C-alpha cells in the first residue's frame, strides 16, 4: 500500500443526508427542487438557513441561474460558494472542495446540494446542449443520450474481456432487489434475469434495463468540522479519503478503465483501509457495465475480472458485497446531477445507520464513487470517497 502525501481530512465530517423523493416528470423548476433540499437540510440538522455559510450546487437544468443567483433566491448569505458542473462526478468533487473549505475555516457549514427537474422535453434539450464535442461529433450521429456512446464502450469491453449480458445483468437485477426495499425508488416491480435478458434493445448491446430513467429530484448533505457537528448534536461520518481525476488514459483507443485506476492506491492509502474492509460500496451506475469497470478500477478485482467478481458475489443488501443499496440510479432513477449524489448520500445514511429499510447491518465503512461527462467517446470525470461512520 502506498503512502499518501496529501493532508488528511482531519476533523471533516459529513452529516444530514437528504433525498427529496424523485418523480418521473415534474412541472417544477430545478430551483424548486434545490430549495426543497435546502429546507430539508436545515430541518434535519436543526439549524437556521443563516447558519449555512457555504454552498456548493450542481444542476443541469437551472437555466441561466448561477450559484450566486441561488443565494439571493434562497436568502442565503455565504462566504464560500462553488458550482460544480461535473455531472456524475459532482458529488465527490463538491465534497472534496467543501471538506477543504471547512477544514481551513473558510466556511463552517457547507450545504452541498444537487437537484434537477425533468420536464417532458428537458432530457432531450440537455442532450442537445451537453458539450461542444458532443454537439459537433456525437449528437449528429443519432447517439442522442449517452446510450450509443456507452453501447460502443460496453461492446468493446464485453468483447475484450469475455463478458456476457448475463454478467452485466446480475448487477441490474441485484439493484432492483435492493430498490424494492426503498419506498422512494421509481422502479417498483421485481426484475428477473429472464426479463433483463429479454428487454428491448436500445443500442446494442445496451438494452432497456441497462439504462437509467431520467427523472426529477434532489439530494444534499452538509459538510462541517466535527466540533460543529458535536455542538449541534448531529450524527456525522468522517471523511477518510477522496480521489478525483479527469481525462485519464487519453491514449486508450476506447475506454476500458476510468480515472480511478490511476489513483486507487492513493484512495486506500489516505484512508488507511483495504478494499476488503469496506462494508458497503456505492458505485456510479449510469450503466451496469460502468459499475463492473469500477469493481476493477477501485481494486476489488483485477482488470478483466469484473464479470467473475460479479458472478462470485451477492450484490444485494443482505449479500456478501452490499452494493448500491438504495437501488442505484438504475432502479431509483437519475435525477440529473442529483444522480451523482445518490450513492454518496445513501452511503452516508448507511454508515450513520439511518438507511431504514435498506440498512446494511453494522455498516460503518463506505465507498462512494462518481463518474461523469461523456464529452465525446468516453466518461472524462471520475472520483471516489471513503466515509467512516461514528461506530468506527
Amino acid at each position, binding site marked *: 500500500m502506498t503512502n499518501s502525501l496529501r493532508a488528511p481530512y482531519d476533523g471533516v465530517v459529513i452529516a444530514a443526508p437528504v433525498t427529496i423523493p424523485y418523480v418521473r416528470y415534474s412541472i417544477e423548476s430545478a430551483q424548486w427542487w434545490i430549495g426543497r433540499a435546502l429546507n430539508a437540510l436545515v430541518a434535519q440538522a436543526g439549524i437556521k438557513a443563516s447558519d449555512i455559510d457555504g454552498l456548493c450546487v450542481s444542476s443541469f437544468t437551472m437555466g441561466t441561474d448561477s450559484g450566486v443567483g441561488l443565494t439571493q433566491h434562497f436568502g442565503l448569505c455565504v462566504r464560500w460558494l462553488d458550482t460544480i458542473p461535473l455531472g456524475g462526478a459532482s458529488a465527490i468533487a463538491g465534497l472534496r472542495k467543501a471538506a477543504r473549505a471547512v477544514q481551513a475555516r473558510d466556511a463552517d457549514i457547507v450545504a452541498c446540494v444537487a437537484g434537477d427537474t425533468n420536464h417532458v422535453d428537458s432530457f432531450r434539450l440537455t442532450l442537445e446542449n451537453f458539450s461542444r464535442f458532443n454537439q459537433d461529433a456525437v449528437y*449528429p450521429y443519432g447517439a*442522442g443520450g449517452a446510450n450509443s456512446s456507452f453501447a460502443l464502450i460496453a*461492446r*468493446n469491453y464485453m468483447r475484450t474481456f469475455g463478458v456476457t449480458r448475463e454478467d452485466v445483468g446480475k448487477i441490474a437485477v441485484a439493484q432492483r432487489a435492493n430498490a424494492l426495499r426503498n419506498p422512494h425508488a421509481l422502479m417498483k416491480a421485481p426484475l428477473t434475469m429472464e426479463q433483463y435478458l429479454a428487454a428491448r434493445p436500445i443500442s446494442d448491446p445496451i438494452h432497456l434495463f441497462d439504462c437509467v430513467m431520467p427523472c426529477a429530484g434532489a439530494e444534499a448533505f452538509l459538510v462541517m468540522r466535527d466540533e460543529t457537528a458535536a455542538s449541534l448534536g448531529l450524527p456525522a461520518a468522517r471523511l477518510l479519503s477522496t480521489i478525483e481525476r479527469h481525462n485519464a488514459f487519453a491514449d486508450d483507443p476506447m475506454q476500458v478503465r476510468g480515472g480511478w485506476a490511476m489513483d486507487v492506491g492513493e484512495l486506500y492509502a489516505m484512508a488507511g483501509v483495504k478494499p476488503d474492509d469496506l462494508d458497503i460500496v456505492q458505485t456510479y451506475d449510469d450503466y451496469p457495465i460502468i459499475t463492473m469497470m469500477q469493481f476493477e478500477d477501485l481494486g476489488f478485482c483485477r482488470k478483466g475480472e469484473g464479470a467473475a467478481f460479479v458472478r462470485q458475489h451477492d450484490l444485494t443488501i443482505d449479500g456478501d458485497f452490499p452494493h448500491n443499496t438504495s437501488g442505484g440510479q438504475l432502479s431509483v432513477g437519475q435525477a440529473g446531477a442529483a444522480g451523482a449524489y445518490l450513492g454518496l448520500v445513501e452511503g452516508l445514511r448507511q454508515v450513520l445507520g439511518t438507511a431504514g429499510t435498506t440498512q446494511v447491518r453494522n455498516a460503518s465503512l463506505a465507498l462512494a464513487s462518481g463518474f461523469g461527462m461523456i464529452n465525446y467517446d468516453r466518461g472524462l470525470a471520475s472520483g471516489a470517497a471513503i466515509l467512516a461512520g461514528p461506530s468506527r
Partner: protein
Amino acid sequence: MIDPIKPPRRKNPLLRTRLPASPPRARSRTSHGFTRAAAEGRFMLQRCDACGSFAYPAREACPSCLSSDLPFVDAPRRGLLLAETTARVPSDVYFRERAPWRIGLVKMDCGPTIVAHLHGDCVEGAAVRMSLQLDKSGQAVAFAHPEGETPNMSDDKQYREMTADPKFRRVLVTNGRTVIGQEAVAALKAAGAKTVFVGVAEPWRPFAGENLLRGQDGIEIVTLDAADEKSATDLAADVGGKVDILVNTTEYVRPGGLLDRRGTSIARDEIDQAYLGFINLAQAFGPAMRMRGADGINSSSAWVNILSVYALANWPAFGAYSASQAACLSFSHCLRAELRPGGVKVMNLFTGPVDTEWFQTVPPPKVAPRAIAQAIVSGLKAGLEEMYVGDVAEEIRQRLAANPKALERELDR
C-alpha cells in the same frame, strides 16, 4: 452485403407523405472545417502545424502540444472500426424514424478516433475508409465505408441518406436544347434515373439533338421556358410532385462587358434567362421538393446548378455573363438555406469555358459537355455541394484563394 434497392412502387394516395425531419444541426464554428471538406468530397482533419499530430473533434488547440495552429488538411482516410452499435430508439426524431441506425467508433491510422455513421458492409475489427458527408441538415458527418468495393454499395440505406443518387429518381433537366442538357439527360438515364423530364423552350424551334431525346424510354420532353413565370408554373402543376432532382441547365452565354456592348437588352436577356429563370424554377419546383425530402426511395434530394466559375471572379471578355452567373451563385445560397429543412441539397457545379459555340474563339482547355454531365452524376452520387469541373475552374478557384487581386488583374486580358 447490401441488397439492391427496389424500384419504388407508385405512391399509395391514401397514405400521408412523411414530412422531412432534420438530424441535429448545431455545430461549432471550427467544426465547419469539416463542412467545407464534405461539400467538396474531401476528407480533412485538423493537423497541428507545430507537432504534426491529427486531432478530432474540432479543436481550438492541439491536445498534444497546445499549439493553436490547427489547420484542416487532407488526411489519410483509412481507419479501423473498433466497435459498432445499432441505435434502435434514438431520441432524435430524424434518427428515430430511420432506426435501426448503425454507428461506430473508428480509430484512424493517423491517430484520432471518430464516431461515424457506418455503411452496412463495415465489419467490426476490420479496416474502413472514411469520408465526410453532408447529412440531411446539410452539416458534415463522418461516414465509414468498407475498405474495398462491395456489391450494391451505393444502395446502402444510411449512405443513401447522405447522397442524392439518381438511381430510381425522377429528374428534371430544365433545358434540353443545349449539348450540356442532352449529355446530362443521357448520363442521368445511364445512372439509373427512372424518368428524365427534359425542358424545351419554344418547342416550335427545332434544335440539334432533338432526335436523341424523342421517343426514348424514360425520357419525356416537356415544354419549359424557365424565363417565363407561367411556363415554369404550368410545368410544375403537371410534374412538380415527381421531380426528385432538378438539374438547372439554363445556358445563356453572350460575350461582352459594359462599355463595348451597347444598351441593356442583351444583359436583360442574360438576367431573364439565367437569374429570373432560376427564380421561376425555384418558386415553381422548390416548395414541393422541400416537402418531399423524406418521400421514400425516390424522395426529392437535390437541385443542381451549372455555373460559370467566373461567377467567382469577373472575366471582362464575358463580363455581363459573369455578372449574371454571380447573381445566380448568390441566390443559390439562399435556395440552399430554404431547401435545407427538406434535406434537399443544392449542388453548384462550376465550369470554365465549355466546348460549345459561344466559347468558339476561346483557346483550350475547354470543358467537354460530357464531362459536365458525368460530374453531375458523380456529384449527386457522392452527395456533394461544390464541384469544380475542368482545369480552368479548378485553377480559378486556387488563384482566387491565393490572391483575388492577382486574379482580377490577370483576367483583364
